[in-house]
């Protein structure tokens, strides 16, 4: 089962991020004086080092929390995480949680989180209490990692058409597409067009907003 960037875009569309494919690699880096002035935090400013760590940590966590048969994790996670980071408050909290996880990995296991074996990553997360922790956006470190790393990744996966399909629902709640599928007896084998539908839904909202303003 292969996740695609399009899956990530469908989930992002549901969250109101349209055009999530256009990624800026160094989203997570601190703004330079120049970008801070123009208010364009991140884009094109830093050297990409911090972003690389955040993305690598998130991808490495995804490889553990996603089912083992999943392919295409790196592209999917990068697209999703970068799209998600357009919401500034989320971006900072996600970055901090990922960096904390990485720091704990070095502390406890002597290596970057992304460089640990999958078993060690799994053990580390469980030892930290992340599996049992309630997701709390500004809680303890385990609660924050649960919210900003594990649940962020699980949301992206199971709200995506491919992730949903694995469980038996091609249009999971959270983004457009259920109006046809609820009437069908089985999952459609051919799912081409589903992203188009999701994107159309995103566009429709823009149109609707402008009508309401009239």
């Amino acid at each position, binding site marked *: 089962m292969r996740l695609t960037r399009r899956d990530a875009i469908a989930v992002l569309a549901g969250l109101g991020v349209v055009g999530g494919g256009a990624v800026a690699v160094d989203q997570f880096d601190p703004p330079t004086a120049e970008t801070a002035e123009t208010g364009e935090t991140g884009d094109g400013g830093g050297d990409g080092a911090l972003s690389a760590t955040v993305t690598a940590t998130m991808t490495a966590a995804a490889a553990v929390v996603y089912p083992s048969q999943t392919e295409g994790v790196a592209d999917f996670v990068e697209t999703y995480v970068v799209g998600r980071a357009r919401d500034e408050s989320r971006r900072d909290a996600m970055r901090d949680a990922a960096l904390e996880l990485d720091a704990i990995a070095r502390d406890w296991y002597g290596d970057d989180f992304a460089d640990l074996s999958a078993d060690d990553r799994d053990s580390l997360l469980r030892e930290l209490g992340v599996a049992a922790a309630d997701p709390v956006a500004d809680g303890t470190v385990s609660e924050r990692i649960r919210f900003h790393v594990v649940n962020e990744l699980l*949301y992206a996966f199971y709200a995506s058409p491919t992730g949903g399909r694995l469980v038996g629902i091609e249009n999971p709640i959270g983004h457009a597409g259920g109006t046809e599928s*609820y009437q069908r007896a089985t999952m459609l084998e051919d799912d081409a067009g589903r992203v188009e539908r999701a994107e159309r839904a995103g566009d429709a909202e823009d149109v609707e907003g402008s009508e309401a303003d009239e």
Partner: protein
Amino acid sequence: MSNPAESDRTPAEIDRMPAEIDRTPVEDADVCVVGAGPAGGIVAHRLAESGASVVVLEAGPRFDGDRQEQLEQHLRPGLDDPWGMGGPRDEFTSSGDSFYPLNAARVKGVGGSTLHWQGMVMRLHERDFELDSRHGVGADWPISYDDLRPFYAEAERELGVAGAMDNPYAPPREEPHPLPAFPPSHSDSIFAEACERLGIDMHSVPNARNSEPYDGRSPCVGYGTCKPVCPSGAKYTAESHVEKAESAGARVIDRARVRRLEHDSTGERVVAATYTTPDGETHRQTADQFVLGCGGVENVRLLLLSESEQYPDGLANSSGLVGRYLMDHLFAGMGGRLDRPTRQNHVGFNTSETHQFYDDAEPVNGLKLEFLNYAGPSPVIGALHADTWGDDLLGQLKADYGTHVAMGALVEQLPDEDNYVTIDPETTDDLGDPVPAVHWSIDDQTKAALERANEIQRTVLEELGVDVEWAVGPDNTGPAFHHMGTTRMGDDPESSVVNAECRTHDLQNLWIAGSSVFPTGGAMNPTLTIAALAVRLSQSVKQRVRN
């Protein structure tokens, strides 16, 4: 410096607020509407359109912008309530045999509780208006189905109801619904096999939800999260009426909490509504006519808080019945698993019901049955709550999703004076006002009707071959969040609070819009009737507005 009302908001909410909003009163207002839910919204729109100067005072905020924030708050554990309910502003107390979860049952904001609602909208039946004459229980309304019938048709256009003429048990109607019904779900077709064999008629559900583009809003695109949030705007919310009212010249002041109504020296007219804004200022809005649309609980609270020397028991309360006869609809449900895919949770609304048992005399309480399209857990939500991940989690989710089916039902509760809303002088909100106190119990007759609903549900599910795994019935039922009956309508000022026009018996220019005027509540979701009464009330108020 922040004040108490401001400080319970999230930083994101405060950011969204324009720096300077004028929340001072409108001079020379003809009509002051309190509350911007469907009742207040429809009245404000109608009256503004007719040329009256209208001001709407709404306790909650405007939820401007897209609905993605609310969508995420709904789906992801660990975030705040999507509509910000439950803070110090919303405190209440509950007594009686059954806890009443008031803050799950309402929303404060422009749009009112329709921001969160499900959007099933059906007309009451003819018998609902004459339960006492026909069956010797409950009360008669001072108006009949025929009186309300043309207003029901208008209300359906106002809310944009998608429906079909396929329900043999519905009361008479002369025209189709404004929008075509949503087609039945795959899950409905599974139920249809059993219902066919059992002689139970299934039919469509009227939904205040666009099956096609309508009223400038998108058609349903299937987010599946209708309750509590529809990100596409396909589900009707009263924000539409508030916007239209504003376009027609009404002024809508959000975060304006009305705390008292003042009357003149004769005690016959209300002269002002005093309200407090987030900056801590208290203002006085005068008007010629006052319409309360605060919902079935806050309408009562405002009247009781407005006690005066002349009216020590509260305003419009010469009958002593303000707050009495609180009713809700009770939920009965049952569900389990089948050995085939049932395709749940694609959409967040239902497409089939049966009203076949609604008019039965045994039990006399109305009851309607629903075939759910959202039985069992949604995998996304399951994943976010799980205490594992990876292949383990996938295995759990696969085992949990795919084969659930369930039926729901709403059951009528008859009016009982001992179920009531009052104010609790011991407990105050963040402005220092006594909070609403709900006293509510479920009587044996209602429990028997719940039992009957369960019996039909079990028959259908067993006919289908379902392993019944859960049931909600007499012992674990809960309210459907339709608070009704607390300012009942009637001809006799001694046994009712408002007259057939929805004007209070005691004060000439004070009107009440909403389900608090229902003498009985049937078993149909109330909002279409609220809307029909609001349209009707607007006509009466229009005639009274000076000039």
